[in-house]
């Protein structure tokens, strides 16, 4: 029962943070709220670790808190894993928030809503009933929406982002609600425990409907294609700590929802459900990575890269369901392990990347890569941390991103030989999607690091950038440390991951991965010794450095002007920009990206052989937004025009509508009665 107290205490501390943020004076509110949020994180983390250790869920019920339904909190191992994931991002993000506060997070509203947002993130995985879940889910959506709009006065973009996010998140919430209501209606109860018992016996059509609705709803939160359009709008506009939490943690909760409904409540489904998930995953991974590779806005790049990573996670989730449906429990478990590891890793490096992007924005006032450059020399620590996080997301060994992709590849590799037609066809294509995604991610992040942090500064503000406050660097450093540690010793989180997977896919007796320093997939031939690999790589690097020093006559290089083909003048404008760097990729994939290029040449009045100025614009719009959402919006708007005729502005007319409706209703009652 003590663990239950911890969960409640965490929630109360989080609320306390919100109240502190709302009531305390400006100099105090952010620090106090942050301290309380840390305490809340501590409580929830302790409860989660307790649950994972005893491998038994904590159940809390209160009938008084919410009218009619009461509140049910159930923290099982799957939820506990996600709580730990949220804590892992929330602590650094709030720490970062202290230094970042003066950029919009220290207003009374923001200081109140931010702790509330973190608290809902912590509590969503502990929800044990439909009502509780939906209440927390909506609160999470609402608070994050408010935080996206913190800067609303500053720009039109942020207002537009808010609108997009609000619409998509509420459409998503509506579909989730319908899915849950169908389940609850057929289960005679609205707790997840009751639903899980009854949902397995529903008609297959109903089950499929529920799963697809949930997939749409949670997919829109997770940023999967084609529901991702809010992501590249909202994430760049939100303050960086909020972006980090949204991209690292909130998006992961979307995947939590899919696993919760698909595996936990419905207990798995037929092959075609999971093929849909695989297709969504593959499309998200490819689409996200392509757009990440061609974006020039640093935070937009990161947002698209979130879609790409979630795509990989959905590939793993889909593969897990596929294996489960074809009775390969071990492979299913391995796939789900890789999904959770990928999510955890993503939370770590994406958090670090968004926070560093925030530091760049603080230092230079810009997140346009074409206006950055040379930041590694000016902000050595932020730059180095960004570089490591970028290497991690590019899946370079010996960092954590590599471990996740290795696990995913192993699960796909072993799935390619199980002999089911669906797997035979889906798996090679999934491998191809994984591979192209990995390659394009490297393009995107070589661009982000190389254009943003190396070379010459492309603007005055980038030239004058200075390092950000220590707390901000420390926050990024914490997340980067997670990346490094989990790359060298990934087995540290495997006990927790395994417990979580066994909750989602019960009935698996054996272990999935042999523990110890090395990684080994039990029962399959897949091995990896990450620590030894990292050690030997470090050894080789040191050895070759020593060798270079010993062999060369000049120990340190002479600093000279870059040769650059002997040009008389070398300026920043001669460098490749983010746009030109991405040009080959854009050209190869122009059927998908459909870039709009605009070349405008102005000639001088005297002769058209002499050019006065040349303007070149290259924009890559979101093709899905353009071809899927724009027509819908246009149709809605047209309908709205029609509907406007009903609204002449006269009070009497409105009252007449009310009377009319009442009369029709009564007539209907009379006729039917």
């Amino acid at each position, binding site marked *: 029962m003590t663990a239950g107290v911890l969960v409640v205490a965490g929630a109360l501390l989080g609320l306390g943070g919100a109240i502190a943020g709302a009531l305390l004076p400006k100099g105090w509110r952010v620090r106090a709220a942050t301290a309380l949020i840390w305490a809340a994180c501590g409580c929830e983390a302790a409860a989660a670790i307790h649950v994972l250790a005893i491998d038994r869920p904590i159940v809390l019920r209160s009938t008084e808190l919410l009218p009619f339904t009461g509140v049910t909190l159930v923290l099982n191992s799957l939820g506990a894993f996600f709580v730990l994931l949220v804590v892992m991002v929330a602590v650094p993000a709030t720490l970062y928030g202290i230094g970042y506060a003066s950029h919009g997070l220290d207003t009374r509203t923001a200081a109140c809503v931010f702790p509330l947002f973190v608290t809902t993130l912590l509590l969503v995985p502990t929800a044990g009933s439909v009502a509780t879940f939906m209440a927390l889910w909506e609160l999470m959506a609402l608070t994050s929406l408010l935080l996206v709009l913190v800067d609303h006065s500053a720009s039109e973009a942020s207002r537009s982002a808010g609108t997009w996010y609000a619409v998509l998140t509420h459409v998503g919430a509506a579909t989730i609600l319908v899915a849950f209501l169908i389940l609850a209606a057929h289960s005679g109860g609205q707790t997840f425990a009751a639903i899980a018992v009854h949902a397995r016996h529903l008609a297959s059509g109903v089950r499929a409907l529920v799963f697809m609705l949930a997939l749409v709803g949670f997919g829109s939160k997770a940023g999967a294609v084609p529901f991702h359009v809010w992501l590249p709008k909202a994430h760049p506009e939100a303050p960086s700590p909020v972006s980090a939490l949204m991209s690292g943690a909130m998006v992961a909760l979307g995947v939590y929802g899919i696993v919760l409904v698909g595996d936990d409540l419905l207990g798995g489904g037929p092959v075609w459900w999971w093929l849909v998930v695989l297709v969504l995953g593959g499309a998200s991974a490819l689409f996200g990575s392509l757009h990440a590779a061609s974006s020039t806005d640093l935070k937009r790049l990161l947002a698209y890269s979130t879609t790409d990573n979630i795509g990989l996670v959905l590939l793993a989730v889909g593969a897990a369901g596929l294996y489960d449906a074809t009775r390969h429990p071990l492979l299913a478990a391995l796939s789900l392990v890789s999904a959770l590891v990928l999510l955890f890793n993503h939370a770590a490096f994406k958090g670090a990347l968004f926070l560093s992007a925030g530091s760049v924005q603080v230092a230079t006032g810009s997140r346009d890569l074409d206006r950055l450059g040379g930041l590694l020399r000016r902000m050595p620590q932020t730059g180095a941390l960004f*570089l490591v996080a970028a290497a991690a997301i*590019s899946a370079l060994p010996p960092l954590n991103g590599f471990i996740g992709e290795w696990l995913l590849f192993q699960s796909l590799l072993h799935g390619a030989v199980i002999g089911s037609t669906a797997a035979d066809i889906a798996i090679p294509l999934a491998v191809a999607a994984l591979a192209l995604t990995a390659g394009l991610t490297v393009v995107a992040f070589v661009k982000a690091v190389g254009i943003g942090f190396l070379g010459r500064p492309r603007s005055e503000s980038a030239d004058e950038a200075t390092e950000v406050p220590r707390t901000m660097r420390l926050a990024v450093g914490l997340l980067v440390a997670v990346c490094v540690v989990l790359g060298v010793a990934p087995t540290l989180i495997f006990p927790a991951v395994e417990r979580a997977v066994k909750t989602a896919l019960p009935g698996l007796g054996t272990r999935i991965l042999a523990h110890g320093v090395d990684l080994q997939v039990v029962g399959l031939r*897949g091995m990896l010794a990450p620590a030894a690999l990292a050690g030997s790589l470090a050894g080789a690097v040191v050895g*070759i450095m020593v060798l270079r020093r010993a062999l060369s006559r000049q120990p340190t290089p002479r600093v*000279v002007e870059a040769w650059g083909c002997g040009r008389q003048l070398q300026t920043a404008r001669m460098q490749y920009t983010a746009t030109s760097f991405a040009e080959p990729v854009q050209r190869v994939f122009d059927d998908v990206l459909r870039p709009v290029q605009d070349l405008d040449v102005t000639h001088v009045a005297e002769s058209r052989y002499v050019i006065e100025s040349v303007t070149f614009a290259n924009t890559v719009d979101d093709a899905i937004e353009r071809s899927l959402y724009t027509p819908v919006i246009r149709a809605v708007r047209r309908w709205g025009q029609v509907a406007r005729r009903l609204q002449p502005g006269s009070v009497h007319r409105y009252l007449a509508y009310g009377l009319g409706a009442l009369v029709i209703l009564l007539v209907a009652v009379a006729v039917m009665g």
Partner: protein
Amino acid sequence: MSTISHVIGTGISSAVQVAVVAVGGPVLVGVMRKVRCRLEGRVGPPVLQPLVDIRKLFRKQRFRPDQATWIFTLAPVMLVATVVVAAAITPLVTTHPALRASSDLFVLVYLLLVGSTLLALAGLDAGTAFGGMGSSRAVTIGALAEPALLVTILALSTTAHSSNLPAIVSAILAHPESVATPQRLFALGALLIVIVAESGRLPVDNPATHLELTMVHEAMILEYAGPDLALVTVGEAMRLTLLLGIFVNLVAPWGVATSTSVSGVVVGLASVVAKVAVVGVFLAVFEVFIAKVRLFRVPELLAGAFVLALLGVVSGLVAK
């Protein structure tokens, strides 16, 4: 075999592998240049010329462009270090190298990716025009090669039920009748194309070009001098040799030692050197007759490799 002597044996085998790749790499480049020159009607430089060039480069000045950072200094080291680790764990001479557990095709691909990624960053580091151009092209080609590469690995791994290289090689040795299946031939064809693309040889990139606008790999390293350039040169040569070494042992692994005994290692060494030399000469002859393709035709080549790999996977499924 007792554990300690096994560990020593694997360690020595790995050291032998690293040594043969480190020395053999430049020599292979020399051999390929020689073959090319002879076919062009020239005498050509001596076979050991690349080694002489490298020794000379170590005696020269080191430079760092004023805008460049520690990445510029680290990249050549990382390039060589990743190839060294990869050479140590790959079954080139013996199927029992050190760190056999990590000797996985997937690991190797990503290990080599570390070196090329850092080199691409180094290209952007000096803040010059051509460096960025080279990096941009190199990472694009790398990204497009990736699907072909991983699907190839998938096709090669399914028979052994593992992407562990020693396991794959041992599986071929155990089932010699499966050497020439369509699955493997398709996959190996795809692998060869990818190796050519990844090591910057014709028709993807011309290592001997002087024209900056046609450069891919050369453009990234235009600012390197002296010992750093020596490391880059050695790293690239080692990388080519390692990739060809993996290739030949996947095509025809016979000769590779299945233990770490002295005689086995000697035979394995001789056989891998001979096989790589044959493939290297074949590539050099091939290069004489072809021209570099346009940059935007490279995707066709890599799409071809990808389809070959897919055909390999399907052939494997059909044969099952």
